[in-house]
């Protein structure tokens, strides 16, 4: 009886053995060779040591040719006193091309804005980066926008402008997909769009784009928005597949993942799923989203142990780490709530420097600055109007850079941080003073 049972089992056993052998045979003889890139002339072989900002590039102005109206300036279809999404007002003094708005200064002069759809404006931005020693930017690519024809046209134009300017000024550039508002089905679109970008712009071509950021020997692609527990319509598993697809068997690209601040402990802003850690381990760099997670008072107690904890985890998992720093936060107009003007005050750069020093002293090797040009949420470091020099805004207002600072103060301060990260000496937790 016993023997019989045993015997009946045997065929199955041998069968499954055969199966296993077969599958091994398929994959083993030709292990896929990882792609090798020619890095002759490549300007940035690693994110390490760099200080790069995020570049929204999503603004448009009426008459700029993008045909998107006052995109991201406007609110409810209007851009006029009482209707605006921006808190900070870009200082457009240096721009060759600007657009007159319905806003007026106290002296009744019309206030102007710029459009990144214009090559000249983007060129100016990269010129500033070079001037202050900021290494470069991550070009934001909003999936929800580029899915549409006009959005795609706009962002491709801004990217073309930026590629040209970054090459001209020797600034690093990389693409960052922002997945806010995406769903599971969009993952295929992203993969396709990414393929298209590579070929359209020859992103990986060391001669065409020597300024395109590389990391771990491959061009770096950033994907922002994995693991947040804010009810997104895609899952961590979707990102896992996307990462696999983007890398492909030949490991075509390195990946930076934009993750929530509490990614390591899977609490607070983070989905409680260990799959997130699996996905993170398959990436090359992570950048946790810190905007709004602390202010100048709470920074040390929040980040003091958080940063070294993150860095130790990444080191143990052979991963690079880029903490985020931001100059302050203000979104009173966007949220229609006056109490949110200057919600996280800049403190003349004290807050930004506190974070730059905090990151550096905690052992970080690269920085992500949020953001270069984000005036909706008031995190922009580029030239903005100062307090006392702002256009009027019905019963609301705009928020300015502190009146006694130059309008490029935050560019300058970020540049000082970049010097420190490049290894220059003379920097400490004490904010550097700008020579007059």
């Amino acid at each position, binding site marked *: 009886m016993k023997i019989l049972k045993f015997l009946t089992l045997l065929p199955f056993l041998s069968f499954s053995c055969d199966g296993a052998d077969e599958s091994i045979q398929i994959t083993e003889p030709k292990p896929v060779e990882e792609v090798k890139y020619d890095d002759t002339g490549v300007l940035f072989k690693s994110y390490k040591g760099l200080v790069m900002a995020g570049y929204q590039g999503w603004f448009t102005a009426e008459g700029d040719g993008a045909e998107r109206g006052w995109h991201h300036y406007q609110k409810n279809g209007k851009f006029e006193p009482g209707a605006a999404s921006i808190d900070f007002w870009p200082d457009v003094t240096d721009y060759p091309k600007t657009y007159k708005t319905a806003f007026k200064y106290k002296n009744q002069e019309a206030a102007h804005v710029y459009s990144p759809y214009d090559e000249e404006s983007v060129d100016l931005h990269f010129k500033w980066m070079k001037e202050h020693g900021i290494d470069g930017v991550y070009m934001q690519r909003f999936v929800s926008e580029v899915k549409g024809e006009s959005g795609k046209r706009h962002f491709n134009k801004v990217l073309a402008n930026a590629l040209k300017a970054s090459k001209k000024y020797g600034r690093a550039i990389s693409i960052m997909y922002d997945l806010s508002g995406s769903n599971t089905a969009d993952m295929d679109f992203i993969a396709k769009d990414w393929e298209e970008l590579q070929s359209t712009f020859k992103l990986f071509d060391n001669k065409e784009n020597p300024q395109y950021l590389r990391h771990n020997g491959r061009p770096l692609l950033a994907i922002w928005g994995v693991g947040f527990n804010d009810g997104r319509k895609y899952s961590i598993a979707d990102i896992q597949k996307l990462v696999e697809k983007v890398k492909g068997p030949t490991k075509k690209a390195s990946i930076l993942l934009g993750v929530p601040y509490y990614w*390591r*402990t899977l609490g607070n802003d983070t989905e409680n799923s260990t799959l997130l850690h699996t996905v993170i381990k398959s990436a090359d760099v992570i950048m946790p989203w810190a905007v709004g997670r602390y202010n100048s008072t709470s920074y*040390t*107690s929040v*980040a*003091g*142990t958080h*940063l*070294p*904890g993150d860095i*130790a*985890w990444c080191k143990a998992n052979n991963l690079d780490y880029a903490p985020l720093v931001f100059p302050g936060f203000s979104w009173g107009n966007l949220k229609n709530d006056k109490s949110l003007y200057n919600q996280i005050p800049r403190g003349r750069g004290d807050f930004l420097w506190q974070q730059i*020093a*905090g990151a550096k*002293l*905690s052992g970080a090797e690269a920085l992500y600055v949020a953001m270069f040009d984000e005036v909706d949420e008031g995190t922009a470091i580029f030239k903005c109007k100062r307090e006392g020099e702002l256009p009027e805004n019905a019963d609301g207002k705009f928020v300015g850079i502190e009146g006694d600072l130059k309008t490029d103060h935050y560019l300058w301060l970020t540049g000082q941080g970049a010097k420190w990260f490049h290894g220059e000496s003379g920097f400490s*937790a004490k904010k550097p003073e700008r020579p007059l």
Partner: protein
Amino acid sequence: MKKISIYLSVLAVMLSAAGCKIDNYPAPDAQLFGTFLDAETNEPVEQDIIRGSTIEFIEHGYASQTKQVMIVKNDGSYRNNLIFANKYTITPVRGNFVPTEPQDVTVAGATQLDFKVQPYIRVKDAKIEKVGSKVVATFKIQQTVINNVKKIGLYAHPEPSVGEPMRTVLSDMEINAATDPNKVYKLEIDIPANSNNLKSGSQYFFRIGALIDAPESKFNYAKAVRLTL
């Protein structure tokens, strides 16, 4: 009276018999031990035996997820000789080091598990000696995080497990600032002023500690020193 005692002994026999049955479960058959090590220097990280860093562990296979805890000896080592062989999720918590992640560990037989941690503070060049009628400690503070150093202290106790929570005499100083790693700090305990706790001719243990200003942090220490007063 006799009757009662007989009954009692019968009862006792019954109880013990029953007891045997209940006790037929296997005894804890494994040991878990290890040391907190400074990830950079590989030196043990000094701890407190009471109200110090804690190791939480959860045994797998039970729905309740009950957290059990182990304490750590002053020299940074810990040992649990009464643990069941099984899988555990183990997390050092509320410690004097940068928080670390839970890890899943299989405990079987004698299992060694060291924790490589980043101590908040390293007490460097520590020297404690008796100078005249005082005990004088000199040392430097190397902080590994950007938080402020909250306070530093010199602690005394008759037992070697001396520390901030276990001391009879102390001399401490609030710092509440970031520290300069090159600065030499000095703390003193006056022996006659503490005559009911520090008797001349007796031996006491002295230890230098420093506390970082981080949530739920514990003191970091140099090794305790024994002095005869």
